[in-house]
């Protein structure tokens, strides 16, 4: 879970609020979900644009 690459671990500091955030990563499992949903979206739009 922890982003360990130095660029990813770089931190933005918001000095007035005290909040910090990592540049962070996009986990591989989420990229896989995005891909599957993208493919499904195209299929569903084409298949169900009009009633069968």
């Amino acid at each position, binding site marked *: *879970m*922890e*982003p360990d690459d130095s660029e*990813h671990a770089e*931190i*933005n500091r*918001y*000095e*007035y*609020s*005290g*909040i*910090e*955030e*990592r*540049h*962070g*990563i*996009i*986990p591989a499992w*989420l990229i896989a*979900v*995005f891909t599957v*949903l993208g493919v*499904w*979206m195209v299929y*569903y*739009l084409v298949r*169900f*644009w*009009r*009633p069968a």
Partner: protein
Amino acid sequence: MSSVAERPADAFVDRTVVLRFLLSGAFWLVFAPTIGVILSIKFNFYDFLGGVPWLTWGRLRPVHVMGVVFGAFTTTIFGLTYYMVPRLCGVRMYKESWSRAIFWLWNLGFTAALISLPLGQNLGIEAGEFPTWANVLVEIVFVMITIQVIMTIARRREKLIYVTLWYLTAAYVWTVFNYAFGHFLLPFHFAGVNNAAMHGLYIHYVVGLWITPAGLAVIYYFLPLAAQRPLYSHKLSLIGFWSLAFFYPFVGTHHYIYSPIPYWTQTIAIVASMMLIIPVWTVIQNFYGTMVGNWRRFQQSYTAKFLVIGALFYLLGCFQGSTEALREVQRLTHFTDFVIAHSHLTVFGTFILWVTAGLYYVIPRLSGRELYSRKLAQWHYWLTIGGFSVMAGVLTLQGLLQGEMLQSGADFVESMVAMKPYWFTRTLAGVTMDIGAILGMWNLYMTAVGGRALAKSPAHAPEPRWA
């Protein structure tokens, strides 16, 4: 320019305005769900309060819906906006003198509008039921706060714009337009099926372009502070924000699957609903990734507790909502309590819990006092989570049962009679949640007025425990 060390961030905040808004929000957080409990009793005892016209189902339900959306949630968001925006920008709120006028305009106007509903005034648009005179007031308030937020960000001293500010700005700008659309155009300029389709868009814009981004602004702000950890990923924040902005505007017509609305618009709504899995799972990864490494804060902080459990309900409720839009699932669940389970999982289970977390964070710190009673906070938490889990579970289950009965040819009345034990359980769960809310809000009120002081000056007070 004074340095951060010389000038604590709370010095940018108008304490009086924030506390007034948050305490009035706390009142609505008890009042609006209580109306929901009264309504749920009517499912069990059909003639309960039925002899009084202004306490009948048709007049009280809008009070519950509008009370939760615009009283409990929105009033608290206004208070949290006046807390978060100056601290994120490093400057005081633009036109700060407006804020006190807005407080009275909002609360008095909203109270009058809410009273008008049981008296029989109603525009007839679900979640947009206030009479026109009240809508003018609400619109003015939204426009004024939007100007304050945008101008404060424009005059900020903080170099970067944190994700909370993206969501808040978007939420306010979208709502200025959507509120005008839903109340000044929709009831008067669209008829028939077009009116239904546009209403589907309006009501989902209230949820997806006001409640959702404003709620996400809250958790993005308070979770890193409560967890005492950096936010997991700025990149995920970007994906979550832009995918919500791209997909949500198309979702609304999924309320009208199998209706005379053109088939292709229904298909777009279904696809957009499913694609909302992207922003939801993205922000969930961001939230739980932030907690990793400091889960003890979940035990120590009531802010963290309400945020994390709210995030879990967000995941469940949104997955339910996405899949519910699919034609096969819709066939089973439409016109059943499954839909009510979804709306409660998202609006109460997620966003009301998140703003409640905001109350637990801000009230002790701004008033410079310890949380009045940890025991009351504990009761609030467990009664809310326990009661709500039962309510969400029962509503989901009975929705599926109703759908199954209707699909297998059962008579509608027969399906209603079969729901009696479930409705009774739902009422008990609602009463449990309501007791929790009363204890919690009393605790927060007492914190503001009678909690043990942390230091002479609230601005320099140490961190309160448990908050």
